[in-house]
């Protein structure tokens, strides 16, 4: 068992998840007839909770045992580089994209995601950033538009009084 901090944490988190899954499985609503049935909506979740708890428990115990010297060491995550700040910023950027897609519309939010992503990952050439992000998004937008697929236009651009009034009514 590869003994690293991620493996230990993941095993413990999976143990908590399996136990929690079992607890919530008890809350699956069943009518009187289903309760009498030999198999119902709770059966598989119960089986999975028991199996999952046993497996996660075994993994947790094994992850705290001393390292097995025969296992490949190249996979041990702790020895490789890790860039937490970039990862966190990228996650924030993705959430910002999700928030902005309906507010700013598909085109602007996508351009923002790509441009900020390029800068975040080290691109410092404004020409490349603009020449990749804008044409790519516009190309996708044109293809999707030609296929008749609806794309969010952005609520902040609904300047027409009637549109704003309709939106307020909704």
């Amino acid at each position, binding site marked *: *068992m590869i003994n*690293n901090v991620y*493996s*230990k944490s*993941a095993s413990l*988190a*999976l143990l908590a*998840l*399996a136990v929690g*899954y079992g607890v*919530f*499985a008890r809350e*699956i*609503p*069943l*009518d009187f007839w*289903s309760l009498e*049935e*030999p*198999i*119902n*909506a709770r*059966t*598989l*979740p119960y089986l*999975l909770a028991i*199996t*999952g708890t046993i*497996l996660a428990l075994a993994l947790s115990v094994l992850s705290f045992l001393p390292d*097995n010297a025969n*296992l*490949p060491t190249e*996979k041990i*995550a702790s020895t490789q*580089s*890790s*860039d937490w700040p*970039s*990862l966190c910023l*990228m*996650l924030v950027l*993705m*959430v910002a994209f*999700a928030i902005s*897609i309906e507010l700013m519309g*598909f085109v602007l939010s996508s351009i923002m*995601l*790509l441009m900020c992503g*390029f800068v*975040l*990952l*080290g*691109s410092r050439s404004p020409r*490349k950033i603009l020449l*990749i992000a804008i044409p*790519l998004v516009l190309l996708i937008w044109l293809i999707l538009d030609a*296929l*008749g*697929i*609806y794309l969010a236009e952005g609520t902040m651009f609904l300047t027409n009084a009637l549109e704003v009034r309709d939106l307020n009514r909704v």
Partner: protein
Amino acid sequence: MFDGILLGLETVLTLNSLMLVFAGCAAGTIIGMLPGLGPISAIALMIPVTYGFDPTSGMILLAGVYYGAIFGGSTSSILINAPGVAGTVATAFDGYPLAQQGKAGKALATAAYASFAGGTIAAVLLVLLAPYMADLALGFQSPDYFALMLLGLCLVTAFASRGQHLKALMMTCLGLMLSTVGTDLTAGVQRFTFGQADLIDGISFLLLAMATFALSEALMMVFRGVRAETGTHASNHLLDKKSLSLEPAEFRSIVPTVSRSSVLGFFIGVLPGAGATIASFLAYGAEKNLTTSANEVSFGSGSLKGLAAPESANNAACTGSFVPLLTLGIPGSGTTAVLLGALIAYGIQPGPQLYVDEPRIFWSVIVSMYFGNIILLVLNLPLIPYIARLLLIPKTYLVPIIIFFSLTGVYLVSFNVFDLYLMIFLAFVALMLRLGDFPLAPLLLGFILGGMLEDNLIRAVTLNDGQWHFLWQRGTTLTLMILCLLALLSPVIPKLMKYLKTGQHT
């Protein structure tokens, strides 16, 4: 039968039909290549285009889109580890490592040859065996299906490397847990939705696949430090012409793998509900177990056999899935369900009578598959150097583009921002699991099979008056259950044998 083949040839060997096959293959390849858009999306997008056609032409075009999209999906699996469809997940196991080693061209060429062979062998089998296969599929009952799904899940040990068997089983269990989120279709009750209306329909396959593979892969690249790299390490090799073709020895080595996997894929594809996903995973597992030579590249680290097996199996299964569609009117997979909808939209009644009432459609679709596979090969082989050059894009630009396509692909299916939040969360969880060395393919397999497994389990128990003896009552079920047990014990058996041997010596 020969009359039927001649009728099919007469219809397909016209400029109009051949153009339709070509257009279908090209459109399918391009759409399937985009992460997030698999064959279902591709066919759904093309159905409105075919409304002006006669049913035969429409079906020929859509069949071309189907196997074109499967091939296109393999391309994105190989190049950026983003399988847009469940059937090409296994392709990424060895295809992506090959691309990382600078052998993207070789991997794409292998995929093209394997797909061609798989599709062609299956098309021959389809003509010869369609009537008999339909009878066999009809004989499969819910206990057999349950055991088959269980076997697919137990074979996860075949995908796990040393020390990972327990982790692979845990991930399968997690995938099954995720598949229970949403409304239970038998009782109609909500499970694990926590009052969230967006979870009533459950988690979509596409969302989970994109989160665990494409997005988590992109996040892993960010985590490992993209800034330090100016381009992909594959770039130099891509310019090397040798990396773009298969050597005769390599070609010869994959021939037996392709032959076996094609036949296996076809037979799995015929079973309704099984389809390309199980076929590709089973073929991969079978080939891994058959490969014993110490000189060969191990599976999971860029083996050509590991790539050829799922590729030929998934294409063969696509062809095989036309058997229940055309002979019984039963969709063998999600994609053939869409094709069934298209048939109904054309005013054709699918079912056993289709073979008798509409022989032109039946045979034209089958014959068009031969030509479709040839066109797919001719279309894709010359394009491989250009497709492979996608890897020349520096990761600084490639990673945000993968993230953009992943998020957009999921958003375009549901137009629901909640799905984006869920996807980002699942991608982060997937990243943490990957750092803990947990394999993610079993998770996806468990999720895909979870619904069908529960459905068949409930049906089998209900039909047997609440008794569980169905597990050993039928010969087919019992055989499959024994295979499940063997698959589960496979990591322990060699150790046990070794222990017994050393015990005898001492």
